């Protein structure tokens, strides 16, 4: 390397991810993270009892997205690889779960084990697809990676149409899901059960990603992002590291997609289109790139923002002529404007803004 202090080889993303100390800590990583997960799960368990079915459904959706954003924020934030195609990876998981569940139900072999097996298959298939894309992605940088992953996001409908016999083209498949266990009582709302499933999956996804981030692999992810040349010299296989990040985040996406299929009891290609992929990216950036808390904020935002913008405009009393023009468009405009404003006001995302706020408060008092 030449003597420049400014080094162009690193991913530009590294310049704005606020670093946080993540050195090895005392005690067992697994136990520490399990504790977090347990606390989170218990909290959500009680929350799920306190809210009505629709909120439970929203919670389940947040959790499904959280599976994905956790992996994506690791890929993009910590490893510096941009993916505009995670929607397609979710589709891999979702369709696998759909086919597996329906197959199980057709053969009448459903049981408590069936759903976990289906989800595991979904993760596997998505991870395989992720490996394939990841191998290509490892050679690509910046907008070129963006372009290829964007093209990936667009192929889902082509596959479902080409193999319409299996995937039923645009119309998609409905997904057989067992009702909540009878032990929970006859009036147990299905949405709450779905929320539990989704939360379980999200916790698993978070646990895995958190473990990985705090291991030497997490260190390697960041090293590769920051400086590929130095990473190689440190004995890190750059391409392999990038593929690994892609595979793990694809697995998370597969899980999220599978969960989404379960809670919505259906899959169809346009659910997993470019919009979803862009939304996921949006979520992790708005939430705070590279942090799992940011991923959680992002998932929450993805569900709440459209909901709130619609609610806000719902109350307006408009003449029919005006209503015809504004309906639909006004929430979208507000949504767009919100994105812009958040990015201008909190360029490091919500999590970063909170952290900064915390620092200021601590300094004041």
């Amino acid at each position, binding site marked *: 390397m030449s003597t420049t202090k400014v080094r162009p080889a690193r991913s530009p993303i590294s310049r704005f991810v606020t*670093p946080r100390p993540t050195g*090895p800590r005392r005690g067992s990583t697994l136990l520490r993270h399990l504790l977090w997960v347990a606390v989170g799960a218990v909290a959500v368990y009680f929350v799920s009892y306190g809210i009505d079915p629709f909120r439970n459904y929203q919670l389940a959706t947040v959790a499904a997205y959280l599976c994905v954003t956790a992996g994506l924020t690791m890929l993009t934030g910590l490893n510096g690889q941009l993916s505009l195609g995670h929607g397609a990876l979710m589709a891999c998981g979702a369709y696998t779960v759909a086919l597996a569940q329906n197959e199980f139900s057709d053969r009448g072999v459903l049981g408590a084990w069936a759903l976990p097996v289906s989800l595991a298959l979904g993760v596997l298939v998505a991870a395989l697809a992720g490996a394939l894309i990841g191998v290509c992605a490892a050679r690509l940088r910046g907008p070129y990676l963006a372009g290829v992953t964007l093209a990936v996001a667009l192929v889902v409908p082509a596959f479902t149409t080409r193999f319409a016999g299996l995937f039923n083209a645009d119309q998609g498949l409905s997904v057989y899901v067992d009702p909540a266990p009878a032990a929970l009582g006859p009036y147990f709302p299905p949405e709450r059960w779905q929320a539990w499933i989704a939360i379980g999956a999200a916790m698993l996804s978070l646990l895995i990603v958190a*473990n990985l981030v705090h*291991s030497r692999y997490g*260190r390697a992810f960041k090293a590769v992002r920051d400086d590929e040349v130095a990473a190689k010299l440190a004995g890190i296989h750059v391409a392999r590291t990038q593929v690994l990040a892609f595979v793990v985040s694809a697995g998370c996406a597969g899980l999220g997609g599978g969960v989404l299929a379960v809670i919505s009891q259906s899959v169809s290609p346009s659910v997993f289109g470019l919009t979803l992929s862009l939304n996921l990216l949006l979520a992790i950036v708005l939430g705070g790139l590279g942090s799992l808390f940011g991923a959680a904020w992002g998932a929450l935002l993805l569900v709440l923002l459209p909901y709130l913008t619609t609610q806000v405009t719902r109350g307006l009393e408009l003449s029919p002529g005006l209503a015809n023009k504004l309906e639909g468009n006004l929430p979208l405009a507000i949504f767009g404007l919100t994105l812009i404003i958040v990015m201008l006001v909190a360029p490091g995302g919500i999590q970063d803004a909170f952290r900064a706020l915390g620092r200021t408060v601590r300094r004041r008092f």
Partner: protein
Amino acid sequence: MTPQHTGTVLELRGIGVSFGGLVALEDVSMTAATGTVVGVIGPNGAGKTTLFNVVCGFVEPNTGDVLFEQRPLRPRPHQLAGKGIARTLQGVGLFRGLTVLENVMAGATHTARAGLVSALFGLPRSDRDERRLRDEAMTVLDGLGIADHAQAWPGTLPYAVGKRVALARALVARPRLLLLDEPAGGLGGDDVEELAALIVDLPNRSNCSVMLVEHHMDLVMKVCDQIVVLDFGRVVAAGTPAQVRDNPAVAEAYLGAEVGS
């Protein structure tokens, strides 16, 4: 401890590199004896960094062979650390998103034992591995007198400390050959002195031979056992510091009339 090799740690035979039409190295042969510090000097653009790049596998030579500890080496950058070769980059080249400690731990990646599965599930095996790496990294940081900075971010470090961290990251891999590219660049007088002491000590203390590219003549003359001079990609002189200093061709092409001394 690694076995003490007698003889040569690195041998280059007839290395040639060209970029498009530009010949960067031509028929460069040299040897570095085990346990010595070998300096590579020469005018800007002479091909010194390129020579390092060949040894590290960043540049594939058009001709010639690299031998490491008498065995042919087909270098691939990420395998070097495992083979016993480390290199510092010019500038600082730290990972800005990792703390000083993590930066150094990253340098020992090849010694990690725990696999992906234990990492994914946060198993004790992975934790043990991490603790071992941390202890090793702390030892090296301590040895270089910068343990205080272990939790700091690279961006906040004084330049000289940053360069030391980079050195620590190279040393934690326990290399038998260390390639230093302009380690004194940008350092002040005191820091250069300390660096010199450190480099001289490396072969004895850490059983590590050193190849050094540097324009800081005081340092080069002080620490090197042998010096190779490149000009326009060719070896134009080689020998002890005294021999090289007195070589008129070197003075003409490289040293010029020293200013102010």
